[in-house]
């Protein structure tokens, strides 16, 4: 186990290094940040000064070495645009993205589970067919379009909910205030749409599979009520795969809520990374991707360890 963990940690480190290298070279290849940040009427002397100020006068490999040196001390550099430490900028925006991702997950479970259960129990009914058709839409409609439609219908036409932005916050969290909560609803639904469809499909296929199991047949033969069979024997057993997938999806939601955050002007990490890419703010881009990579490494590691704990047949030692 310890050997395995050490090996995993070493691999993770390699991934981080590779990641930072790719981003460094990638941003360099895309364009010159000074060209984008500087005022067009700045003269040549001012341009040269800005290049030096941002540390872009050195060759790329030296810039990278400076970055690594600082990173080892926990300093991922300063944003070119905001002149604030990149890490701090991202961490400031993290609660907004976290609560959006959690809100979407809550919606996915609250809406997806019952619908999936219904579709699984009554597979031939019209309702089930409608639900399954709807879940295809959830998979295939582009997020930005759905987001705009949600705004047009619920904010502009009906006026029920605010159109964009994050509401009042308490201790940095907006779901603690009524105003903040009302701002959270539309973007969460938008982000949840894909997951709702996913949960519906997982639940439905789980239910249909389980219904044919011997223990379900036996429970029914025993004369247990329909509700007891459904909610105790079937439901409990389908929950395991659903929880696993939803948990893993949380990671990608945090990392890739970019589109929803842009459409709803949600001040989270996703919007920060898009704004940063648009102005080639390299320190923020690098720091953001490092954090995301780290997050996925940790999630995967935890999942692997959990499996070995839950299922003795899985041995971590043997894996590479």
């Amino acid at each position, binding site marked *: 186990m310890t050997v395995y963990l050490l090996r995993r940690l070493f691999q993770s480190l390699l991934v981080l290094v590779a990641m930072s290298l790719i981003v460094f070279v990638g941003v360099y290849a*895309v*364009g*010159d*940040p*000074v*060209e*984008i*940040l*500087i*005022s*067009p*009427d*700045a*003269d*040549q*002397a*001012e*341009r040269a*000064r*800005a290049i030096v*100020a*941002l540390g872009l006068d050195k060759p790329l490999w030296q810039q990278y070495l400076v970055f690594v040196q600082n990173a080892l001390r926990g300093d991922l550099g*300063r944003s*070119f*645009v*905001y*002149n*604030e430490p990149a890490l701090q*900028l991202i961490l*400031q925006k993290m609660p907004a993205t976290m609560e959006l991702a959690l809100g979407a997950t809550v919606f996915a479970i609250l809406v997806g589970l019952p619908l999936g259960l219904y579709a699984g129990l009554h597979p031939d009914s019209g309702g089930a067919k409608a639900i399954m058709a709807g879940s295809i839409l959830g998979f295939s409609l582009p997020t930005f379009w759905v987001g*705009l439609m949600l*705004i*047009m219908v619920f*904010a*502009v036409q009906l*006026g029920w909910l*605010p*159109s*964009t*932005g*994050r509401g*009042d*916050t*308490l*201790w*940095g969290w907006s779901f603690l*205030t009524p105003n903040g909560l009302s701002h959270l609803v539309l973007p969460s639904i938008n982000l949840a749409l894909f997951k709702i469809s996913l949960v519906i499909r997982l639940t439905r296929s789980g239910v249909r599979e389980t219904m044919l199991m011997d223990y379900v047949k036996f429970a029914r033969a025993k004369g247990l009520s329909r509700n007891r069979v459904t909610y105790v024997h079937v439901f409990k057993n389908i929950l395991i795969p659903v929880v696993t997938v939803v948990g893993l999806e949380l990671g990608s939601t945090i990392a890739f809520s970019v589109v929803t955050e*842009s*459409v*709803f*002007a949600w*001040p989270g990490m996703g*919007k*920060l990374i898009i*704004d940063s*890419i*648009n*102005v*080639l703010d390299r320190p923020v881009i690098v720091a953001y991707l490092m954090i995301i990579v780290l997050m996925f490494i940790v999630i995967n590691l935890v999942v692997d360890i959990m499996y070995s704990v839950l299922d003795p047949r899985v041995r971590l030692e043997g894996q590479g």
Partner: protein
Amino acid sequence: MRLTLAALALAGAMALPAGAQTLSMAVGAPVTSLDPHFHQLSPNNAVAGMVFDRLVNTDGQSRMVPGLAESWSVVSPDTWEFRLRRGVKFHNGNDFTAEDVAFTFRRVPNVPNSPSSFAGFVRPIREVTIVDSHTIRLRTDGPYPLLPQDMTNVYILDRETHENAATEDFNAVRAAVGTGPFRVVTHRLGDRIEFERNDAYWGEKPHWARVTYRMIVNDSARTAALLAGDVEFIDQVPTADLARLRGDARVAMSEVTGLRVIYLSLDHPREGASPFVVDNDGRPIERNPLRDVRVRRALSMAIDRNAITERVMEGAATPTAQFFPPGIFSYVPDLPAQRADPEGARRLLAEAGFPNGFRITLHGPNDRYPNDGRIIQAIGQMWTRVGVRTAVEAQPWTTFVSRAGRQEFSAFLIGWGSNPEGSHPLRNLIATFDASRGWGNSNRGRYSNAEVDAMLAEALRTIEDGAREQILIRAQRAALQDVAIIPLHIQTNIWSMRRHLRHDARADESTRAQDIRPR
């Protein structure tokens, strides 16, 4: 700290009657810093214009008006004297004096990590002399007529408050202390700024006791926020939404012809083959056809500017043949926009030795200016119609502008926002690229014309406005008749608001709460 701020914001929001003197507005471009000397960027300058003042302010038409200086004049050929306003106080109660102006000039070139500093505006100043507490003299290297114009870009700070203030201190609000009509209450970087009225403001006090200034970058989301009533005022109205908003009874518009010209830049310096020009069989042309003024003129004549402004821009632009709209200092009076003349263009091409035209690639950004990608598509068709078979390539600004700066293109679309003074576009876009003079830095086509350079140099030595304007008009006419660039149109700046508001539109694109009033 965060808790107290949030609680304060909450209490503040609840204490105020809704509607009365509160304003909620949204802008399309993020404000990257509250430090007025950190990043020279129009959205930052607009916010700086709410919190701070300049010695010389500008009105809606970008004309100079007294700001913290009540008047200014030349006292000797190389010295300007500014007489400062008395009785002005900073938000924290400190008095504004000449010391603060001198301090500001010292700070401007020394802001650490600035990606685009304001140093260029104070560099001409050789020596600062404080005559008395409210009079200051600035000596320059020889006569320098543009100093008052430069002063419209420099926001004045307080020596006592800002002696050691870093950019972070401004962003954290504690150093965001100016003499302007609003003070900052809270600031969430890249998201929103809350302002309150400065009741001790020396000038006309704004109507709004409290202002929420939000940044909604996505165009559709910004329009939706206005229609939903979440915000009462937006800027950068996308042209695609114009028809809808104009037809909406709940909404009013304000607009003004701006100072941003959209133009095509051509490859001037290469005498041999130009990278994206080939003959009709796809072979490189040995001499660069764009060096022939007849070819450049033909390319300009082939463009139907009215079609572009009416159909592509939905009327939100004015065709032009120069940098400025009428009424701006150094506008060239007898230089109307080129009318579309495909026959004439073909004739000129034949005269220049290209009766069957040639092939060219027209580059441009697709995310920078309103409808930029569609404009170059339209031009591609117009050029193809006169025999110049045009391929169009639109790219994201980040990639595009770096390549354009390295002279990688033969022809490309780009824009320029001018100060209302002919020397500004001439010096930056037209003058020969010369690092020692600081000229031609945005002259990405590397046009070079000794006659124009000489006139510009003369203008920059001429203090008297009338005489300078005449020289600048001559210089612009010479450059534009030589088709140094192909001007297309000047953008119209458009704002949209709920019906109960009215707005004094600004040619410089700034979106500021003091320009908005109840109807």
